[in-house]
């Protein structure tokens, strides 16, 4: 099995395989630093993009391997320098906010992990059109849905290549086996890859109720796959565009299973995506290279680097110093400063999320909609936007964000009116009300500071004669305790959309199934439930839109929540970066991005 990595023949083979030796690397740096980097460009980077990743030996760093690598590297370097044609390779550095947990996306639920795994490395059967939640063909060129909505047949794209890396060389193109493998390992408890590494939890797959929904996945032929469902599910196609539905290589899995190193699957990923995996240095750097045979065309940048930088101030500092080109999650306080910097571009977009205060509609006096409505009139949303969001938020009137289709803009919000609130409370016969407000202990996209938000609400409610006690628990405990049906108090919480389908908000957060679970208001309204259940089974989008608009009207009338805000997401980047499109679902994508010279 061992190859002689040092041999010239081997190197030659690599270069032959890759078709050409590509360009040297010149990293885009401010002029001040460029001078000292000139010779580095010659000496250090020539081998960076192509030869380098290939020379790495499966994650092992023994000295022997290293010596081989060193020899090979030196050879590769000199070869590459000789062959350099003068065209420069482009590297984009992204200062990411945290470390990925692993690279097998379906194992995880965190956006940070998705940014580093599913987005650069993999494709899905269908993809979201960049910047929207509209679904486009991905690895499936087309699909048909049966009349009863139970069978989804996907026609797969032909000639799609998996990544060739130092640790894996694919012998075949992508086909139906890969799709079946990707989903069956999550679905079937007896699948050899169902528990391939300790603590495997296909949490997203389970969280989306896929095990109940999918009956079976059938390989019709090499390029046709059929999903058979237990019940019709209108958001199914959108679900398949989500991160957990990323398609992995069955061939690579077989190879690892044979070698007895299944855990590598999560550490050295192989996909069909726009970038291939080069290396990960824990908590520091992740490196990717453009996939030369990407089915949608090779990327304009040659290398993609994630520089893991958890501190927002440090990220900004690095961005300003030119050490990275794009950064996520700037501190709200720095927004004005970034706007005024002519070397930086600031993109912004409304986040696909909602922050809310959920009353417990099963506990008196919050079982009366008049009381809930009265309290909604007592919340000063503008004060919250100023103090908590500092300009990075937008008041919410509906349980779904305004960027989502079927958002009912005709609905009128409960205005801030403490006098009216007092009257309504008196009319409902509520006096000297004391209540608890739960504040989350963590920062979330839809609520940057729950504690502070609770303090503002406390002050607002005091003005209408309602005494508020703020309570908090450790995050995990908070999430589970707030599910209790007889919970005491109103809960601050929120939701970030998974797939852009209104069902993902309305059914999950307010449906009758969610009582005692994700429905923190413990609210089960027959009219509302009938509307969203019907919308689930209908495939016509116009009809669904109509149903969801009606549901939002019922919601507003019944007021199980005080809807607080939708956050605005900012994305600062160097002005040289072009083609970056913000994802309404909150992900960070680098395909299609380029850097101007």
């Amino acid at each position, binding site marked *: 099995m061992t190859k002689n990595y040092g041999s010239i023949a081997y190197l030659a083979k690599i270069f032959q395989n890759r078709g050409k030796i590509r360009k040297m690397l010149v990293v885009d740096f401010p002029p001040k630093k460029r001078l000292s980097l000139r010779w580095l460009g010659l000496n250090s980077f020539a081998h960076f993009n192509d030869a380098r990743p290939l020379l790495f030996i499966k994650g092992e760093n023994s000295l022997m391997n290293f010596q081989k690598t060193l020899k090979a590297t030196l050879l590769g370097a000199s070869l590459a320098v000789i062959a350099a044609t003068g065209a420069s390779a482009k590297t984009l550095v992204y200062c990411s906010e945290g470390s990925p947990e692993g690279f097998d996306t379906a194992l995880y639920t965190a956006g940070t992990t998705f940014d580093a795994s599913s987005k650069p490395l993999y494709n899905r059967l269908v993809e979201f059109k960049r910047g929207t939640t509209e679904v486009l063909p991905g690895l499936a060129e087309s699909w048909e849905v049966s009349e009863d909505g139970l069978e989804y047949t996907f026609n797969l794209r032909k000639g799609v290549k998996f990544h060739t890396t130092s640790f894996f060389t694919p012998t075949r193109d992508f086909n139906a086996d890969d799709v079946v493998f990707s989903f069956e390992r999550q679905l079937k408890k007896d699948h050899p890859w169902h528990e391939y590494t300790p603590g495997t939890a296909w949490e997203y797959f389970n969280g989306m109720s896929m095990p109940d929904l999918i009956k079976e996945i059938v390989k019709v032929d090499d390029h046709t796959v059929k999903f058979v469902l237990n019940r019709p599910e209108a958001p199914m196609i959108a679900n398949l565009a989500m991160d957990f539905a990323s398609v992995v290589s069955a061939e690579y899995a077989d190879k690892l299973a044979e070698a007895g190193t299944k855990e590598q699957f999560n550490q050295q990923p192989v996909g069909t995506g726009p970038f291939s995996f080069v290396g990960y240095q824990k908590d520091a750097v992740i490196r990717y290279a453009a996939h030369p045979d990407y089915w949608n065309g090779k990327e304009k940048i040659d290398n993609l680097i994630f520089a893991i930088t958890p501190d927002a*101030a440090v990220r900004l500092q690095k961005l300003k110093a030119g050490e990275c080109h794009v950064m996520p999650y700037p501190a709200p*306080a720095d927004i004005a400063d970034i706007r005024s910097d002519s070397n930086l571009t600031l993109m912004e977009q409304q986040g696909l999320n909602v922050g809310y205060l959920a009353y417990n509609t099963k506990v008196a006096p919050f079982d009366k909609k008049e009381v809930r409505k009265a309290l909604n009139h007592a919340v000063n949303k503008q004060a919250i936007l100023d*103090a908590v969001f500092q300009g990075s938020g937008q008041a919410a009137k509906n349980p779904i964000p305004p960027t989502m289709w079927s958002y009912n803009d005709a609905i009128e919000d409960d205005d801030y009116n403490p006098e009216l609130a007092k009257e309504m409370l008196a009319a409902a016969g509520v006096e000297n009300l004391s209540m608890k407000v739960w504040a989350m202990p963590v920062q979330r996209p839809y609520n940057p500071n729950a504690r*502070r938000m609770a*303090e503002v609400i406390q002050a607002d409610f005091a003005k209408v004669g309602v005494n508020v006690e703020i309570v908090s628990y450790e995050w995990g405990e908070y999430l589970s305790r707030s599910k209790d049906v007889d919970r005491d108090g109103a809960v601050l919480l929120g939701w970030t959309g998974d797939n852009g389908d209104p069902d993902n908000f309305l059914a999950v957060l307010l449906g009758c199934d969610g009582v005692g679970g994700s429905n923190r208001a413990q609210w089960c309204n027959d009219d509302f439930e009938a509307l969203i259940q019907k919308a689930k089974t209908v495939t016509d989008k116009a009809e669904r839109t109509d149903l969801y608009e009606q549901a939002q009207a019922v919601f507003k009338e019944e007021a199980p929540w005080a809807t607080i805000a939708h956050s605005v997401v900012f994305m600062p980047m160097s002005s040289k970066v072009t083609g970056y499109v913000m994802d309404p679902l909150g992900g960070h994508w680098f395909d299609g991005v380029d850097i101007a010279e």
Partner: protein
Amino acid sequence: MTETSPATKADTAKLEEESRSAAKARLAEFWYYFSQNKGAVVGLVVFVLLVLMAVFASLIAPHNPDVQYRDSFLVPPVWQEGGKTEFLLGTDAVGRDILSRLIYGAQFSLFIGVVVVTIALVGGITIGLVAGYMRGAVDTFIMRVMDIILAFPSLLLALVLVAILGPGLINAMIAIAIVLQPHFVRLTRAAVLAERSRDYVVAARVAGAGHFRLMFKTILPNCLAPLIVQATLSFSNAILDAAALGFLGMGAQPPTPEWGTMLAEAREFILRAWWVVTFPGLAILITVLAINLVGDGLRDALDPKLKRS
């Protein structure tokens, strides 16, 4: 040894009488040596000022520390361009007066120091006395437990303890007290071991003093010097550790104007508003420095070995 002669009893009484008058003389001598150390006196003055500041915070502070002036976010200190006279040291991200928060913060830091040292001192002395006096299995067990505590880096242990107890000022203080405890235990035990074979202890025992009296009345007062020095050092350590926990988000919770917590909140402004980062840290430094100066003075005055040289 069974019969106690009247002569020994008289001797014991005389000894105790002598030690009492000697105490007065020692105090005078102590102050003489302490005041020789200029740094210690400066430290003491600063410390007294800090205590006064904490006690009269509500009178001195120009603003309520929790009031947010919505029109004055991140106002720089008064001497810098854009500063406002009503906010001498500027305001933080939500428009709170930094000076007022620092003044109120002194309350928390001193409170932390006092509580932590009291818990650690009382616990440490009791456990140390028991260990040193009882010897044997009890001693071995206690000292192994202390070894276990000392085997962890103090901050890490405190961090895990706070995670278990839940973030917050009180829990942070408990955690720090537990972490500082072993030093007191070891010190007390060592002192007890040194003292217990001395003549006066033997005399007291022969005179029929009970275990309790022997431990607390006879031996303890003679081990106090190193404990006082250690207590001062622990006082400053407690303030530093509590601030560090606050900085890691596990200490006092916002909006408490605890200095470490203020620093944690200010971190995002590090390159933009130097004052929100600089002043809380400076306050910690000055307080800790003052206490350490006093501690040095105490040691010089109490440690006879250094005194002589």
